[in-house]
Structure formats: structure tokens, C-alpha cells
């Protein structure tokens, strides 16, 4: 008992008090800035392994970006990644950052369905479905609920059954072999319900986009309530995205 109390004392407080204004350590690759520097645009676009960079004017699609940092390493005068981790949005097109822009990723409050904020604002239960996810996004979603990030302080939690959930969080590019289970899980979730795509693989297929072993028809059939970019998405990106969606910040 005394030993356990000692451990508790040594651990101290580990939680991040303010998840909105927190700073991430080191050289995190968050929202990029594209300067007006003149570079060989074709070469720049070809550097990107997932065709996330579009030319004239130069834009980066965070829904396709795997945050590998290659463009910033090869064209440092043109592209810099900032530590801004608040890059989730409810509109797919808001994930496209254009040359010269340096403002937080847009979130369209008007487009949020009314019932989401009415019903889920202070209590949101989510069912996670990994559909070809590589276990890094899954580990980060788990971390969102650890003692550091402590997402449950906002009433947001992951639950075991879709029948207890208010929505699903999809990770992975959606393998063919998971497409049926994903569909069943979604159908088992009671209305009203939300769909969140966490990570580049879920949003666009990422590096697996053209694989014949994936099947993205689910995404085409339903409207998506929140896109959370990242490879994998940082727990703070995920939590802040949800707080925006729920109209809490």
C-alpha cells in the first residue's frame, strides 16, 4: 500500500491541463505553410509519394499527405511544417492548404448537423473500426484516453459495442476483407450517428490508394462528419477535432 502511494506521489500530475493551447514537443509536422518562393513546381509535385501536392497555385491536401516531410526537406524555402496540430475539419476541401495561407484549418460550424451538438455535446460514445489500419492510428486513439491526454474528461469515450455508440471512427484504407464487417458495425449503431475518418489511410487511402485489395465504397455512400489528418493522427489533433465538432471550443 505504502509503495503504491509512493509511486502515485512520484508520478505527480501527468495530464495536459489545456489540450487546446498545449504545445507539442520537438519538430512535429503539423499544418504546413507554403511560401511564395519560386521553385520547380513539377519537381515539387513529383516529390510527393501520395500526390498530395497540387500545382498552380501550389496546394497541399492534408487528406492525402502522409507527413513524410520529404517536400520540406527538398524544398525548404517553399514548404515548412508548423507545430499546429489542430488540423481536423468537417469539410474535406478545408484540408487543402494553399500557397500563402497561414491560418488555422477552417471548420464549418454551419455545416455541423444540429443533432450532433444537441445530443452529443457533453457525452459522445464512439466505436472504433480498424479496417486495414497499421496499428499506429489505433495506438494514438488509445493514447487519447490515457492519463496524459485524458479525453474522457470531455465525456468522450470509446465503447465496446456499436449498439452503445453514437458513431464510428474508421482507421485504415478499408481493406476488402473488412468492408462487410464495417458495414455491419455501422448499421448496428443507433441513429443519429456520426462517422469520423482518422488518419490519412482512412481519408484518402494514403499509400494504399491504388491497391486492388482495398474497397472504399463505404466512404462514397455516407457523408463524413469529421476528417482527422495525420499519419497517424496525434491524440491532440483527434481531441481538438472532436471538441470543434461538438461546439465546445
Amino acid at each position: 500500500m505504502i509503495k503504491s502511494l509512493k509511486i502515485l506521489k512520484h508520478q505527480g500530475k501527468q495530464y495536459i491541463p489545456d489540450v487546446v493551447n498545449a504545445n507539442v514537443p520537438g519538430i512535429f509536422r503539423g499544418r504546413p505553410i507554403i511560401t511564395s518562393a519560386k521553385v520547380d513546381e513539377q519537381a515539387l509535385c513529383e516529390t510527393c509519394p501520395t500526390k498530395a501536392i497540387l500545382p498552380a497555385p501550389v496546394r497541399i491536401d492534408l487528406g492525402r499527405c502522409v507527413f513524410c516531410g520529404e517536400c520540406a526537406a527538398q524544398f525548404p524555402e517553399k514548404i515548412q511544417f508548423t507545430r499546429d496540430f489542430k488540423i481536423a475539419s468537417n469539410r474535406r476541401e478545408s484540408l487543402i492548404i494553399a500557397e500563402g495561407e497561414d491560418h488555422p484549418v477552417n471548420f464549418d460550424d454551419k455545416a455541423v448537423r444540429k443533432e450532433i451538438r444537441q445530443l452529443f455535446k457533453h457525452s459522445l460514445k464512439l466505436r472504433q473500426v480498424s479496417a486495414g489500419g497499421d496499428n499506429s492510428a489505433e495506438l494514438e486513439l488509445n493514447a487519447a484516453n490515457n492519463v496524459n491526454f485524458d479525453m474522457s474528461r470531455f465525456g468522450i469515450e470509446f465503447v465496446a459495442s456499436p449498439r452503445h455508440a453514437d458513431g464510428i471512427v474508421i482507421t485504415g484504407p478499408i481493406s476488402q476483407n473488412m468492408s462487410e464487417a464495417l458495414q455491419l458495425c455501422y448499421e448496428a449503431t443507433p441513429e443519429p450517428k456520426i462517422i469520423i475518418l482518422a488518419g490519412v489511410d482512412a481519408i484518402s487511402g494514403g499509400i494504399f490508394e491504388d491497391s486492388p485489395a482495398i474497397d472504399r465504397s463505404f466512404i462514397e455512400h455516407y457523408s463524413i462528419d469529421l476528417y482527422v489528418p495525420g499519419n497517424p493522427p496525434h491524440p491532440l489533433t483527434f481531441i481538438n477535432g472532436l471538441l470543434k465538432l461538438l461546439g465546445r471550443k
Partner: protein
Amino acid sequence: MNKYFLKIKNNQAVPVPSIPVYDYEVFYSYCYGLLQNKKRYHCVNYFGYRIESDITLIMVIADDGEQCLYVAASRIPNNTRLKSFAGSLSAMEKFEREIHEQFGIEFTDHPWLKPVRHSSSSLNSYVFFSSDSEELHEVGVGPIHAGIIEPGHFRFICNGEQILSLEIQLGYQHRGIESLMVNKNNILQRTLLAENIAGDTTVGHTTAFANLWESLEGYNTPYDLHFCRTLAQEIERIAMHTADLSALCADVAYQLGNAVFGRLRTPIINFFQEWSGNRFAKGLIRPGKVLYPFSDTLAQRLLKVLDDFETDFVEMGEQLFSLPSALSRFEKTGTLDSNTALRCGFVGMVARTCNLSRDIRHSHPYNLYGKTLSHEPIMLNSGDVFARAFLRYKEVIQSIEYLRILVNYLPNKFTKQSSLSGMASKNTLVVSLVEGWRGEICHCAITDHQGKVIVYKIKDPSFHNWKALELAVRNNEISDFPICNKSFNLSYCGHDL
């Protein structure tokens, strides 16, 4: 027997024509001759590839005594029936199932040619092993599980609370990585695929790929790249072992251990972020270059992170491993004996907890192993959940020591621009072995006469070790399944590719 094989080293590029090709019967007897000495030899990869209508089978056997690999091949026509290795060597069963699944080859005395990864149609129509007894019942779990984890299906046959049989069905995570590895012709795209084989083993798999690719181009890997890869592998081991200890505590409802180990992982993966901008080190390992040099400042920072980590980690570990309520759940639960481990060809941590020395860092050293770090595997012998938990604890301490040694050998320059061309040598084979935190990772590549990659074969340690979970839970209570499962913490995506 060895003289009938091509003898190579880990990461050595060799011309494909130098691989001896035999008729299947001769091939079988030579390979069998080595593999029956299970302690010294084990098969690290056995796969096929098609050229026109013929199929070439390649067997790579590791000799842990001589620190070398033996390679032989056999060319067989389509739709042949072959005598199976698995008929007498259990460790070969999955390799042959995979070859059967990919090329339709029938192995005559194979115990069970069950699909490995499935197409979606075969997955949905698959009939599980079952029993007609009215006294037994079946429990099906998955593919979607209760927690935030990857999908797979577990089918139990139980007598009351007791598990008689567990059948694990995988394939749900299949993304077609091996064929994408062949079809993408750009180094960065291939590197990203390697990073995504299993995101929890980003460093392990990407190192295997980078080491392999550099050999394939005949590139002499500079010291700084070896340094960064070795360092990153040990950091990844600490992070994942700590995460697993946290999860093991959660499964025995020991909340203090769950919270403390869980939060202790954070400074370790945050260090990856400080170094490489990503908590899983995605972006760090690149063939021919490193975008994020390991500066002296980072070295000092790492030492500080480790000092703080170690104090808390040891305090928590000593408490956990002397706590009767936790030990009573860990000890003699999910036990494997060393004969089973040897017979079924288990690798990595699972083997080492069964007193079977399987550790590539020791047996087939690469990067700075065998040079700056002379690694001695930690071995335990009880083969139970306790051993798998305690081995993690001891390996974390060992990895901390390795990191402290490594920072004394900082490179004085870093290769920030790659001189690789992206063109591999023609008609070449490379086998790359890495000891990831779970165990033996094996990547093999073969190029054709134009230098185009025609086969890229990936093997995660989970390929072998899922069988260990099936066997370990037999005769245990089904309520102990979660803790058994967590004590192995195998990869679904690494298996399904």
C-alpha cells in the same frame, strides 16, 4: 548437407543464377536434412514466384551457429502436387499454406491447407473447425474486438469455462503490400509501404527494407545510417514493451500499473517526435539518407529522458513483479514449453521465454549489432504470461543500457542527401533480417535481368507466433484469454500485409 546450398550473410546481395536449383525431390531432401536439426537451423522464409507458367520455390534457412543463411531453389510446373515439409516439420506449415493459397499447389500430406489471408469471398464462406459434441460450446469473437485494436476472428471450442481449442482467422487487414512493393517503382513510396506494414514496428520493418534496398543497389551504408537505425530500434523496443506492460496490467485490472506504464511510454515516443517529428518515427528511416540527424543536443536530451524514465519504470516494475494479486494471474497462465516452441518454429520474445535462443541481433548481426553492441539475448524458461511480461521488463532495462552505450559513438557527419539511384542490381537476391521488438523480421527481394523487382517477400514475426497463442490458451480458462493474447501482442496487419 550445407554444401548443396548457396551460403550468404544477412543483407548480402547475390546473383540469382548462383542459387542452386534442384528437382523438388532433391530440394526436399537437402532442405529437410538441415531443418531436422531444429536447434541450429530454422527456415526464415520459404516462398514462390511465377515466371511464365513455372513456379520457382526459394528456401532460406538460417544457421544460427555459423551466422549465415543457406539458400536453395526448385522450379516446378503449375498445378503440381508436392510432398509437404509440414507433414513432418510443423514449423513449415504456414509457408506451405501461403504457397498453396498463392499458386494453387497441393501439398499431399499437409495437415491442413487452410487459407492464410483469404480473398473476401473465401473469408465469408469459411467453415471453422468444429466439434459435434453436445457437451461443448463455441465462442466466436471478432473480427471487430471490444477495444481499439485491429481485426481478426477468434473461434473457441470450450468445455464450460475451459478452452479446448482456439482457431484464429486472419486476413481482414490484407492491403496487398507485397504486390504494391513490386508495382511502385519509387524508393520513397516503397519506404512508406515498409513504414505501414505494421505501424507499431515502423522502425523494425523500415530498417529491414532500407538495409535490403541499399544492398540491392550495391550501396555501402555509411556509419551514421547504421547508427540511427540501431538507436531507433532500441527506442522502439522500449516504447512497445512498456505499452504492453501497461496493457497487461489493464487485463488483470491493476490500474496503477496500467496508468503508470501507459504514461511512461509517452516520453519515449515523444522523444521520437523530438528527433523525427513523428511519435512512431515515421519519416526517420530512409534508404541512403537520414533527414533528421541525431545531434549532440538530442543525445543529451535522450540521456535525460532515459534517466527520468528508468527511475519510474524500475519502481513500477518492482512493485508489479512482487505483487501477489498480479503474479497469481501471470504465473502458469498461457504456458508454452520449449519443445513446442522449437517444433513450431516460434521466434523472438516468444522463443526466448521458452529458453530457445532466437535473436537476430545475436545470431545474424546487422547495423551496429555485433560491433558497437555485442548483444546477448535475455532468456527465460517458464513460457507463461509471467515470462513474457518479465522478459519485456528485462529487455527494456537492457535497451536503456544499449542506448547509453550508443550515444558515446555519435557520428560526426550525417548523410542528408541520398546518392541512391532507385535502380537495383540486375538478377539479384537479398535477404534482410532484423530483430524487431516482437522478433524476427525477414524481407527478401529478387530482381530480374533489367533490375526490376519481381518479388518482394515480407515476414513479420507474427507469421509464426500466432500459432503460439492458439496453443498457449489450450486448457486455460476463457476468462484468461485477454491476458494471454496481450502477453503475445501479435500483429494483425504485419501478418496480413
